[in-house]
């Protein structure tokens, strides 16, 4: 019996666990508007939904799974709406290179091109970021 438990433990240790996974039975929506500091709408900006998850590999190693699971473009009013499959990782709305968020409430200062989509902020599978102010770096 002890040998079986030991073998199971070793198998789990070698296989690793906690990979990034998507759920085809749950689709979430993020929407909002991009403006500059003067509240002028910014059209034609491509936004991405970025997923990341730390994984545990064999021999105690650690890694990170990452994937862009959806993209969207702001319309002429600066509005965007992106639908994407739910994942078990941390999910961010990502600006294209060269742009940064200037809304200090919604952004992590170390990664000012990302907005964390907090799971507890979703209501009926929707998160409304309202207005996001951005600028060029």
């Amino acid at each position, binding site marked *: 019996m002890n040998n079986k438990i030991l073998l199971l433990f070793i198998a789990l240790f070698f296989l690793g666990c906690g990979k990034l996974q998507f759920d085809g*039975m749950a689709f979430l*929506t993020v929407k909002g508007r991009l403006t500059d500091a003067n509240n002028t709408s910014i059209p034609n900006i491509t936004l991405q939904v970025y997923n990341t998850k730390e994984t545990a590999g064999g021999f105690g190693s650690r890694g990170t799974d990452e994937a*862009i*699971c959806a993209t969207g473009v702001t319309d002429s009013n600066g509005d965007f*709406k992106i*639908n994407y499959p739910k994942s078990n990782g941390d999910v961010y709305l990502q600006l294209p290179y060269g742009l940064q968020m200037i809304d200090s409430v919604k952004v992590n200062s170390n990664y000012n091109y990302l907005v964390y989509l907090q799971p507890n902020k979703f209501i009926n599978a929707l998160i409304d970021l309202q207005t996001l102010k951005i600028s060029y770096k």
Partner: protein
Amino acid sequence: MRVFFMFFFGLCTTVCFAQNSKIANDEQSSFGIFTSYRTFVGDNFLAKSYNNYPTFGMQFSLNVYKKFNVGAFYRYNQAKIISTQYVGNTQNSSVSDFGVFLSYSKKLSNKWLFIPKIGIGGFNLKNQIIDNRSYERFRYYTFGSVFFIAPEINYFINKDLIAFTVVDYGFVDFTGITASKAAGTNYNAANQLNFALGIKVGF
């Protein structure tokens, strides 16, 4: 070689024409393969996201009582993405469904049968996101239930070999999907049409 062709020609003509005088059998079991074109219609995430490649499938039908048969089928096709707006950045998708049906055979003439079918099955949509940096593949699956009606026409090439065509309409139920009403389309139901051509062997 000449002998082979003569033998092959003789076999084909024998199979195809030898039993032309026999009438269509409306009380028999069969096994068939088919190709079809599947399309999704209506305001739903499938119709807005996918164009479909040809479907390949097989079906088995067992005569259980007089002109009534029960059967099972499986269909599979790759799906071409026409929009990632509703299902994420999937780069490789496929659709399969499988199920059971009840059919009734109605003889139209000596060589033609009309077989209305009604059935239920499972629906499986596979999507795949590929990470651009690591090229790692992340697959995710959407499951539903299919309820369909399918009028089928059979033409008896001979007593045992049957060509058939079928048009089926299916309602795909996705009540298990969670999605926002603001998403802009219906995630909880879809409609599909299949136009199939196939051949089956009766026994």
